[in-house]
């Protein structure tokens, strides 16, 4: 007799979730409810210790044996958080919670505007130009083909995203080539995703067959 209560619970929950594939049933419902409750609790606690304790508390009151300086600026986050919770006090005060929200939305917009422009757009265009110029300067046929594949693909793919011009004629032709490249990209992602997902299922099957049923080593 081998009996490990943890493995049994794990196995039952695993079967419970998988049973959803057959149809919705009571075991799935219970597993789902446990999942929602436990995971909400998990993140609640994780945010408490990782964000509030580790980031804020340790940041403001660093341990004595490290020579870190207390970062009083972190109180700003607490103030924002408090304002956010003002919503709990009802509609009379609750509108204040829109201020921290406005700050977060504004800061996110500003931050992402610049980082996306720099690291998504400019550096990708730069790489496309760089690849091509590099291939021309040291010409090999394969290098040229590769660099032009990338340059043409990027160019036509972008054409597809034009909103203010009708996709017709030569412009439409470029957009169509663009969609070809997008589709190959999706296909490649699809292939890799299949591989990844199968591996995950293998992990679960291995758990059931080996840890629970002891059918394989």
């Amino acid at each position, binding site marked *: *007799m081998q009996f490990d209560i943890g493995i049994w619970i794990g196995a039952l929950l695993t079967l419970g979730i998988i049973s959803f594939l057959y149809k919705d049933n009571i075991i799935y419902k219970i597993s789902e409810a446990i999942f929602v409750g436990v995971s909400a609790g998990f993140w609640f606690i994780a945010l408490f210790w990782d964000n509030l304790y580790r980031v804020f508390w340790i940041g403001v009151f660093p341990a004595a044996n*490290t020579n870190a300086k207390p970062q009083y600026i972190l109180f700003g986050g607490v103030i924002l958080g408090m304002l956010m919770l003002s919503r709990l006090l009802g509609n009379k005060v609750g509108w204040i919670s829109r201020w921290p929200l406005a700050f977060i939305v504004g800061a996110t917009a500003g931050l992402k505007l610049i980082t996306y422009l720099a690291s998504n757009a400019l550096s990708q265009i730069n790489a496309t130009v760089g690849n091509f110029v590099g291939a021309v300067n040291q010409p090999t046929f394969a290098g040229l083909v590769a660099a032009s594949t990338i340059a043409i693909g990027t160019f036509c793919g972008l054409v597809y995203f034009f909103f203010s011009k009708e996709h017709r004629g030569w412009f439409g032709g470029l957009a169509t080539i663009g969609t070809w490249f997008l589709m190959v990209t999706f296909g490649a992602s699809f292939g890799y995703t299949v*591989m990844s997902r199968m591996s995950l299922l293998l992990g679960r099957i291995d758990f059931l067959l080996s840890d629970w049923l002891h059918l*394989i*080593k």
Partner: protein
Amino acid sequence: MKKIIPIIVLLILFVIALFNKSQLEMSAGVSILVTILLGIAMIVVLILTISGRSIERRIVFLFIGVSLILPFFMNFTLPLQVSPEVRTLYDALAKLPKGSKVLASYDYDPPSAPELQPMGDAFMKWAFRHDIKVIIIGLWPQGPLQANLSVNAALADPEIAKHPPKYGVDYVNLGYQSGNEFVIQGMGTSIRSKFPSDLYNTPYDSIPLLRGVENFSNIDFVFNLSAGYPGTVEWVQIAVDRFGVPVGAGNTAVQAPQVYPYVESGQLTGLLGGMSGGAEFEKITKEPGQANTFLLSQSFAHVVVIGFILIGNVALFMGKTKRRPPIG
């Protein structure tokens, strides 16, 4: 009647779980027979689909389940070619002289373990066998605990167990630190400032392995296992681009396509992508493990998925599958 079947199945499983002590294995003949049966079943599906009777999705589910489970009991291995990006990583590791210090960053959590744990296990076994010192950290909270699983797997190896590596001298686990890419940034100046003590609260300075380890310039190689953010991209952008330490990585298959450009440009010293990357790494390091046993199932599953795509398409061109009417 229908309601009783699942209960019976469950009961059988319970009995096996409680009392089974023997392991199942199919002989080569049975394996081939099973494979042929699976193929015949697919052909039946094809015929049904062409004749306009699309099979239910639950049958598709069953196919996937069966084609993943059966190979676990089969006993043959497929020839495996080691791809160039895996070889690059191995060559970089193999070039390290004895006593080199490798920083192993485990940046994933249990859901991604099936793909990344085999890589971690193979790496740890290889490192212990070849007298490479390993410094473990994690940018994901669960990472260092996954690393401990790898250490345990390595210590269970009978040959390594004869001369077991010493904690604190041959390997050390510095635990998790929050702050994502800022942790890597900080380690560039001082590893001590980011990891003042190890996982068991031993102060940094009283760990023999870390004597003289100030920052990346004292690290010979970084081995990163990554399932997302923060992960390989951040290691490349900061540790490689700013501090010049070589980084090799293992990634989940989903993430690998986004990391390929860095391999191509040489910023990343080798890449293990998904289960097949893990299997190739196990092969080249001669540390066979889980990825190799999974690979057969993986191959079966790919073939079945491709089979279903083809069946669906053959049916589209030859048969009478109903298309969903457009809405409006």
